[in-house]
């Protein structure tokens, strides 16, 4: 095989892997939008908050220690040595459930039947509040996140592909980050679990009913508030998974909240209401932006085009299919 073709395949593969990382963030948006019609601007901050909380539990950091020490002149920083990652993940899930409950009680409950734009604005406020609370709780240092997921280039793939190039050509084998492979496995598992859950469980069916029609769901006795808490908690769980993956790659720092921007073109492309759409959209955006960066950027001798190219792709798609690839078609009857 020619080196050019192998490089092209490598770019596509890496694009697919990056796309999965975007899909992990987009999934959280889709879940909430499906169930409540709210575009949760705070989803990126959810991922940041979950990752901060996970590292905090892992390392035994006292929440709000800086504030407590400032107020009472104490020197509390850690209350126990490091704990196992599984326990920390479990505690983080509990925290995200409590957070969902608090959001429902303090925000959503009071905004039932408001215009979608009001709910959207509320989530913007929520994003800033949660970012501030995360800072107060855990501090804004860069934190190292290690839950045991391997990362780094796959030696196996490199060795397996090094011989594929035509004889005499300079080729070093294909590169894929093992962390991204794990992200793919986890995403497949998550989507499968979500599909089974929504098809075969009572709560899942209730969730779909709420997504279809709030009023009808209420009339058959489904508690909207319980469903909302449930959905926001699930979205918090997915945010934690995204936070783990992104945090392992870059360390947990406040820029993590900006990963939401990576999910937006994915949502436009895949549709706001479709879980498979979030995955397919992520894959398309991932591949598209990597090919653009390497081939179009290379051709024009410019760089850093992948960010805006993802939005360009989404815009073009929007012109032809506003509801996204798998989104529900909007039909307004007069």
């Amino acid at each position, binding site marked *: 095989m020619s080196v050019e073709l192998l490089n092209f395949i490598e770019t596509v593969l*890496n694009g697919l892997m990056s796309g999965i990382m975007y899909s992990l963030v987009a999934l959280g948006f889709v879940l909430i939008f499906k169930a409540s019609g709210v575009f949760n601007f705070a989803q990126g901050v959810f991922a940041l908050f979950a990752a901060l909380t996970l590292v905090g539990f892992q390392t035994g950091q006292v929440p709000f*220690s800086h504030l407590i020490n400032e107020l009472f002149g104490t020197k509390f920083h850690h209350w126990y040595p490091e704990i196992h990652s599984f326990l920390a993940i479990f505690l983080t899930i509990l925290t995200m459930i409590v957070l969902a409950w608090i959001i429902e009680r303090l925000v959503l409950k009071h905004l039932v039947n408001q215009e979608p734009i009001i709910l959207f604005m509320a989530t913007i406020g929520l994003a800033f509040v949660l970012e501030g609370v995360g800072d107060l709780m855990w501090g*804004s240092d*860069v934190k190292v996140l290690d839950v045991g997921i391997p990362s*780094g280039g796959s030696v196996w793939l490199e060795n397996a592909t090094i011989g594929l190039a035509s004889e005499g050509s300079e080729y070093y084998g294909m*590169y894929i980050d093992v962390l991204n492979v794990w992200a793919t496995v986890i995403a497949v598992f998550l989507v499968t679990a979500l599909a089974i859950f929504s098809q075969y469980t009572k709560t899942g069916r209730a969730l779909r009913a709420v997504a279809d029609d709030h009023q009808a769901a209420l009339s058959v006795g489904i508690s909207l508030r319980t469903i909302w808490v449930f959905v926001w908690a699930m979205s918090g769980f997915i945010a934690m998974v995204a936070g783990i993956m992104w945090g392992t790659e870059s360390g947990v*720092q406040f*820029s993590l909240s*900006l990963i939401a921007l990576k999910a937006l073109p994915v949502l436009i492309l895949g549709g706001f209401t479709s879980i498979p759409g979030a995955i397919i959209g992520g894959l398309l955006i991932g591949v598209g932006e990597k090919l653009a960066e390497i081939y179009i950027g290379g051709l024009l001798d410019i760089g*850093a085009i992948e960010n805006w190219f993802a939005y360009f792709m989404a815009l073009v798609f929007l012109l032809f299919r506003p509801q996204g690839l798998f989104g529900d078609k909007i039909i307004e009857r007069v």
Partner: protein
Amino acid sequence: MRLKKLFMGMAVSVIAIGSFLEVATADLKFPMLVYRTGAYAPNGIPNADGFVDYYRMINARDGGIGGEKIVFPECETGYKTQVGVECYEKHKKGAMVFQPMSTGITYQLIPKATADGVTVYSTGYGRTSAKNGKVFKWIFNAPATYWDGASIAIRHILKQNLGNIRSKKIALVYHNSAYGKEPIRTLEVLAKKHGYKLMLLPVDHPGQEQKATWLKIRKSRPDYILMWGWGVMNSVAIKSAASIKFPMENFIGIWWSGSENDVLPAGAGANGYKALTFNAPGTDYQVHKDIKKYVHEKGNASGDGSHFGTVLYNRGLFQAMVQVEAANVAQKMHGTSKITAAMYRDGMENVNLDAKRMEELGFKNFSPPFKNTCENHGGSGLAAVQQWDAKAKKWNMITDYMYGDSEVVSKLIAEDSAKYAKEQKIALRCK
């Protein structure tokens, strides 16, 4: 109606009293443009803490500068240029000096501060040609500029290759902003001079996702990588370099890409990564002992005190020290402790931080000596190379402080500043 008038009156009184207090107590006003929130907060916080601790120490130990207390109102920029300009406008009245902590903000402030008569000190960042004091009266960027940094990195590579890098390929991975683009011109000129091939690889803000950049690097196999990064971009780049098994000893960052925040997330993979620096890390200096005694032990540390001695905290100390020293010099020059902004500028232009003065200030061997003059606002241009030891989790200085290629850099500075002077119709000073 009466109630409304009463409230209005109260509000006016509060504003008036507030303004009076600010003027009455703001003997020496050093406004701080900080970013304690947002994507770049992990770098902004330790740096700001260094400033605050130093000012508090000077106020507590010496009663201020020449008996005048320092006030240092903070204004949060979030590393956003427009917000930084708003902060400047808000605090410029009565201010001695602004440290923008962003090249983008510095570029915006250069014409404004020049018109307003306020000193801007961009320590080792900002517009490189501001080193030319003949053109940039109010702007200072000592002790070294980005063009010094670029040429020092190339000099280090030259040394490793016995002076011949003709066939080498050098990549610049840079933050796609005014800051990141600053060294390109110098590196292009140096590429012509030394015959190396330069690859330019921009990374968009914030730099969380860089896969395409590192695939390009993996394919083209540069011999060396230089990095002008900031925030999360640094840690992702270092981790990506380790991931593609790039030899870390051939990866050199500018001084803003060489803090603990940048290397720790990459763990053992960051071992051997190099960065330039113009100040030492650690806490073995008199200034740290004084800060412990007069600030931390009194419970007045900025933040939780956990950044004490880190690279960016120490850089904050250095920056604050130069700003305080400029006020010291100005007071002596003009024979008054109550200096004006214009007097302060004179002080900054006559700062002479030789080894003896550094020792007196508690900074013995902390940074290379430097001196500002009317012509030279950029100091000595000296920087050293430090290398990360991942096992010991510390930076080690592996070279002495060295000069860049002054022949190339001086020529470029003269060209760029002359162009600016022509555009802005600035008459040259220092004749």
